[in-house]
């Protein structure tokens, strides 16, 4: 009887140790698999955004050759303007040309695995989203604000560096 009790105690002790080890492993697994924190004000991503915003497009809202750069084109899209020379809406052209420019830009940088560019009204609806790739590293982000009349437009970019 005494031997049986002793055996039971040892089994309980062994189970306790196993449970402790499993709980410890689970905790560290969760810690290691948690989402990596996003660097919200990355100089690297800000540099990409600044260069893209200055790029001159082929869209002229008023007359040729008064072509919009991307910063102006974001405003034109928000105001619902049309590219007079191309006979398309500014938003359609913005979507098409921005995807092409940002896509080529990111493709030229082997360290970029994923990118996402959002265009939205501050505290309001999203107007455009471009994204491509898969993320397996840390995410860096940056945003630029454009003022259009009384509204504030936000262009936010996220890049996942492998």
């Amino acid at each position, binding site marked *: 009887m005494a031997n049986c009790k002793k055996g039971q105690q040892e089994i309980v002790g062994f189970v306790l140790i196993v449970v402790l080890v499993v709980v410890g492993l689970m905790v560290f697994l969760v810690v290691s698999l948690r989402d990596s924190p996003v660097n919200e004000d990355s100089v690297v991503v800000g540099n990409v955004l600044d260069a893209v915003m200055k*790029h001159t497009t082929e869209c002229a809202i008023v007359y040729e050759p008064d072509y919009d750069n991307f910063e102006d084109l974001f405003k034109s899209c928000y105001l619902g303007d049309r590219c007079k020379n191309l006979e398309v809406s500014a938003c359609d052209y913005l979507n098409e040309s921005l995807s092409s420019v940002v896509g*080529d830009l990111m493709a030229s940088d082997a360290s970029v695995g994923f990118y996402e560019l959002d265009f939205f009204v501050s505290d309001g609806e999203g107007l455009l989203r471009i994204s491509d790739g898969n993320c397996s590293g840390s995410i860096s982000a940056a945003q630029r604000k454009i003022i259009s009349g009384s509204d504030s437009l936000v262009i936010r970019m996220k890049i996942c560096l492998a």
Partner: protein
Amino acid sequence: MVKGQMKIQQMAVMIVAVFFFFILVGLFFLGIVFKDVEGSAEDLQRAQAISSLGVIADMPELNFDSGESMTLDEDKLRIMSGEFGEDYDLFWPVASIGVYKVYPRFDEVEECPGTNCNYYEIYNPSGHENLQAGDGGYRDVKTYSAYVAICEKVRESGSTYDDCEVGKLVVGVRG
């Protein structure tokens, strides 16, 4: 006596196992902590490199408009990548300077001047292969890059406007 020794052995093995378990957990934890530190250090290094490249890009010899940072003048790039640029050999505080047009995307580097060219070699006294960000060319030269706008004044239908493209400034620094 034998039973007592067995008990001591069991306890010793258990203590060693627990000790190794906590050592492993500690190493795992340190690995996670230092992974973040490594990432932060890389981010800082990139930010510092871009800031340093800004100094080169904002030099009057390359800058398009003194009010705009990280904006290069394509006319100045044409001049500086030609024979005139050779007079600046002692001027540049770096090992090499090159500027790529990254849009539209290209598969082969075409040095300017030329049709559909995409690369301006501003300064490269060693004469090594076209600078690509990261490869360094020579072993002792480390390259850093940042995106810039390459602008030029274009006259069309009697009006002048600024035509800007996205480019990449690549600077080599001797390590």
